[in-house]
C-alpha cells in the first residue's frame, strides 16, 4: 500500500511580507517622542523615584533633564523602528522582545515628559502597584471571558457579573463584618447570574448577545435601585465594608521596587497570581481543558465522542462567572472600600476587548489587562503631576495608548470556531 504523505500545508505559500503596521506605528511613536517630547519638549528636570518611602532598601532618585531624556529615548525608539524595518526586509516579524522594550521606553518618555518639573516626580512604585490593582477586575473579567468563550458561549454579561460581585461583596461584607464571606457570596451571586446566562443560552437557545445585554441592563437597574432606596439610607451599616488588609510576604516584599508592587498586596491580587496560571494549566494541560476547547471549536465532534456539550458549557460559563464575581469584589473590598452606582463603569466591556487582545490565552490576557490598568492609572496620575496640560488631552492618552496597542501590534486573531454558536441536535 502506498504511503500517504503527511506534511503540513498542501499548497505552496506565497511569500508575503509581514505587515508594515508595526514598523510604521513604531516609527511614528519614535518621531512623536523625539520631536514633541524631546526637541520641542518641556525644559526642566524630571525626577524618577524608584523606591517607596516605606521600603527598607532605598534606591537613589534619578534626576534628568526632560528634553535630554526624551531626545535620547526618541533616537533609541527610532533606532528600534529601523531595526524592525530591517527585520521586515528579511521577511521576519519583529521579535516580541523588541516590541516590549520599545513599549517600555516609550512609556518612560511619556511619564518623564508628563512629570517634568513636578515636585513628586515619577513615583514608580505608586504607578506600578496601582496598575496592578486597577487591572485586577479586568483580569478576573478577562478570565471569565476566556472560560465561557473557549467553551463556545459569548459572555457579554461580564459587566453585570462584575457589578453583582461588587454590590454583594460590599453589602455582605458590611453586614457580617467578614470580608471573606463578602467575597465568597459575591462569587456565588455572580455564579448564579451566569447560570441564568448559561441556561438561557444553552438550553433555551436564546441569542447570547441579547441575554448578555439584558442581564447587564438588569443588574445595573437593580443595583442602582437598591443603592438609592436602601444603601443610601444607612450606608454605614450597609455599604461601608472597608478593604482587605495588605499582606506583605516576608523577604519577597523587600525586593526593591517589585517587592512593594507585587508582594505587598491584598488577597485579591494574590488570588489572581493563583487563578491565572491555574486556568492556563487546566485549559491546556488537562483533560477538562481539552474537552472545553473541543466543545468551543466543534461541539458536534465533541458530542460524538461522548462529551456532554451542554453540561460542559454550563459549568465553564458558571465558574467563569464566579471568577468575574471575584473581580467585582476586587473593585469594592479589594480597592475602594464601598459600592458606588455603576462602579464597574464599562470595565466588563473592556474585559471583552482584553480577551481578544490577549487571544483567549490567560497569560496574554493578563498582560493586556495590565496595559489597560496602566492607562487608568495614567489618567489619574497625569492630572496630578502635569496640571498645565489640558485635562481633556490627558483623558485621551489612555485611549490613544490602547488604540496604538490594538491597531499597531495585535495581529490577526482567531476566535474559538464555535464561539457564540448554540449547539442543537436536529
Amino acid at each position, binding site marked *: *500500500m*502506498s*504511503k*500517504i*504523505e*503527511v*506534511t*503540513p*500545508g*498542501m*499548497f*505552496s*505559500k*506565497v511569500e*508575503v511580507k509581514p505587515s508594515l503596521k508595526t514598523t510604521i506605528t513604531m516609527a511614528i511613536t519614535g518621531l512623536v517622542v523625539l520631536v514633541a517630547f524631546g526637541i520641542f519638549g518641556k525644559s526642566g528636570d524630571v525626577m524618577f523615584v524608584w523606591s517607596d518611602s516605606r521600603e527598607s532598601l532605598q534606591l537613589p532618585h534619578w534626576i534628568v533633564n526632560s528634553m535630554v531624556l526624551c531626545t535620547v529615548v526618541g533616537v533609541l525608539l527610532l533606532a528600534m523602528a529601523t531595526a524592525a524595518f530591517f527585520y521586515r526586509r528579511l521577511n521576519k516579524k519583529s521579535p516580541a522582545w523588541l516590541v516590549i522594550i520599545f513599549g517600555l521606553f516609550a512609556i518612560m518618555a511619556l511619564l518623564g515628559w508628563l512629570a517634568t518639573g513636578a515636585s513628586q516626580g515619577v513615583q514608580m512604585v505608586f504607578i506600578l502597584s496601582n496598575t496592578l490593582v486597577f487591572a485586577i477586575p479586568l483580569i478576573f473579567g478577562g478570565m471569565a471571558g476566556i472560560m465561557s468563550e473557549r467553551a463556545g458561549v459569548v459572555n457579554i454579561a461580564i459587566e453585570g457579573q462584575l457589578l453583582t460581585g461588587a454590590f454583594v461583596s460590599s453589602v455582605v461584607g458590611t453586614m457580617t463584618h467578614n470580608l471573606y464571606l463578602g467575597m465568597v457570596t459575591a462569587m456565588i451571586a455572580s455564579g448564579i447570574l451566569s447560570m441564568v446566562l448559561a441556561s438561557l443560552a444553552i438550553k433555551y437557545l436564546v441569542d447570547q448577545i441579547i441575554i448578555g445585554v439584558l442581564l447587564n441592563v438588569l443588574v445595573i437597574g437593580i443595583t442602582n435601585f437598591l443603592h438609592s432606596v436602601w444603601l443610601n439610607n444607612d450606608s454605614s451599616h450597609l455599604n461601608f465594608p472597608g478593604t482587605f488588609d495588605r499582606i506583605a510576604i516576608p523577604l519577597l516584599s523587600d525586593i526593591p521596587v517589585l517587592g512593594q508592587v507585587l508582594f505587598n498586596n491584598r488577597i485579591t491580587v494574590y488570588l489572581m497570581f493563583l487563578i491565572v496560571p491555574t486556568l492556563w494549566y*487546566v485549559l491546556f*494541560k*488537562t*483533560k*477538562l481543558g*481539552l*474537552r472545553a*476547547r*473541543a466543545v468551543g*471549536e*466543534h461541539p*458536534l*465532534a*465533541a*458530542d*460524538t*465522542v*461522548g*462529551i*456532554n456539550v451542554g453540561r460542559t458549557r454550563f459549568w465553564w460559563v458558571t465558574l467563569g462567572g464566579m471568577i468575574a464575581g471575584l473581580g467585582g469584589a476586587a473593585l469594592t473590598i479589594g480597592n475602594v472600600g464601598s459600592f458606588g452606582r455603576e462602579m464597574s463603569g464599562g470595565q466588563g466591556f473592556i474585559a471583552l476587548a482584553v480577551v481578544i487582545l490577549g487571544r483567549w490565552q490567560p497569560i496574554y490576557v493578563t498582560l493586556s489587562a495590565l496595559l489597560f490598568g496602566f492607562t487608568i492609572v495614567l489618567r489619574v496620575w497625569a492630572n496630578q503631576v502635569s496640571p498645565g496640560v489640558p485635562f481633556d488631552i490627558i483623558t485621551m492618552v489612555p485611549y490613544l495608548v490602547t488604540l496604538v496597542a490594538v491597531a499597531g501590534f495585535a495581529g*490577526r486573531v482567531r476566535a474559538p*470556531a464555535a464561539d457564540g454558536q448554540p449547539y442543537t*441536535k*436536529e
Partner: protein
Amino acid sequence: MKLELRNITKSFGTLVANDNISLTLEPGEIHSLLGENGAGKSTLMNVLYGLLQPDSGEILIDGKQVNFASPGEAMAAGIGMVHQHFMLIPVFSVAENVVLGNEPTGKLGLLDLNAARKLVKEISDRFGFDIDPDAKVEDLPVGAQQRVEIIKSLARNAKALVLDEPTAVLTPQETDELMEIMRGLAKSGTSIIFITHKLREVQQVSDRITVIRQGKVVATPSPKASANELATLMVGREVDLETKRKPAKLGEESLVVKDLTVLDDRHQQMVDGVSFSIRNGEVLAIAGVQGNGQTELAEAIVGLRKIHSGSVVVAGNDVTRSTVREALESGLGYIPEDRKKDGLVGEFTIAENLMLDGSFTAPFAKGVQIDFAKRDEIANNLIEEFDIRTQSAETLAKQLSGGNQQKVVVARELGRELKVLVASQPTRGVDVGSIEFIHEQIIEARDSGKSVLIISTELDEVLALADRIAVMYRGKIVGIVDGKTSREKLGKMMAGIAA
C-alpha cells in the same frame, strides 16, 4: 460482535425517514448500505449511534437489547462511526483528537499525551496508516484525516465500524486503499457497515448488501449483482447510466483563464498559476479530489474571491477585477457548489429565487419596482421547462427536495442569456432522476453554443459530460486531457502524477 437493528422507524414531522428498517451485521463482515441521497441511510446510522432516538424498533448486540441515549453509550458498546463530515477538531493534534473524550491522565488531571501518542502510533503501525501523532489535523490531507477518524474508533475498541460515505472525499487510489483497509479490519474481526451510493465500490467490497429507498428496505441483493441491477433497485426504475451527446461543434474561445493565482487568508496558493480556455460549444471539466482549489477557482472566475495575479476573460471582457454583477452582465452564469449556502435563499419563494441575479434590470424590474406579473410568468415558465416539482411558484425554496432545489438554481442560471456557464458540483446530493435531467440541460447548453466549465469531484459526472478534462491537484492543473481518458489515468492524475 453481532449487531441487529429490528424494525427501526424514525420520522421527522410528516417525513418518514426510516420506515420499519431491519438490518443484521455479522462479526467480521462488510455490509453495504446502498441508497440514494435522502433515502434515510444517515438517519438510520444516527439512530444506531445514539445521535437520534428511534420512534420504534430495537437494537440488539449479541442478542441482547440495548438503548443508546448518546454517542458515548454507543461507543462504550463497541460501535464506532466515521462520519461523512469528519468529527475532528482542526486545531488539535492527531493524538489529542484520538483520545478526546477518553483521555489518559496522570497526576493532577494532567493529560498524558505520551500515552496518547503511543496509542496512535501502535494502531497506525498495525494497519499501516503512517500517521504522525503530533501533526495538526487541519494540516493533513483529507485521506489522512479519514484514517485519523478510523484510528479514533479503533482506539475506543470499536467492534463494529460505520463508514458514512467514506469515499466521497478520496481519489480513486485512496479509495482502493480504503477498501484494502476495510478488508484488513474485517479480517481482524471488526464488522463494517459501509454506507454509499457508489455502485462500483459496493460490488468491490461487500459481503452483503442492503438497498434502501425512501426510508424502506427494498432488497438485499447478492454481492455479485450487476451494476445495472443495483442501480435499478436503488432508484426504483430502469436507469440509463450513459449520457448521450453529439460531437462538439467548436466556436471561438469564450472563457480564457490565464496564470490565475488565488490566495487564502493564510497566504496559501489555493489556485496556483492555472491557465485554460474553453471554446463555445465545449465542456471542460475540472476533476480532482475535493479541496484541491477547485472551489476557489470557480469563485475567483465569478468574482467572489480576490484574484492575486493572472486574468479572467469572459466573452472578450476582462473581468479579473470586476464585481460579480459586472461578470454576470458580461454573460457568465454560475451554479455554486453549495446550493443551500450560496445558491438559494431558503426563506424566499421559488419565484423570488428565480429572479435573484436579475432583480435590478428588465424583465424583472420596472423602474425601481419589481414587475410582479412578469416575475410570476417567468417563474411559471421556468418551473415548467425545468421540471421543478412543486405545487406553485410561491413555495419556499427550503421546502423543496435537494434535486428540485438544484433545478431552481440551474433554471435561474440557464434561464437568461449566457455565453459561459460555470457549474460547481452541479449534482451533489441530488437524486438520480434529477442528475439525469441536469446533465441533459448542461449538454443542451453546450450544444446551443455556450462554453461550459464543470467542476466536479465525481469522476462519473466528469466522464459523462466533459469534452476535455483538466485535473487539479494542490492548486495546480496536472494536465488537460481528452474527455475519453481512462479512469485509471485520471485517478493517477488526481493524485498529482502528470500524464
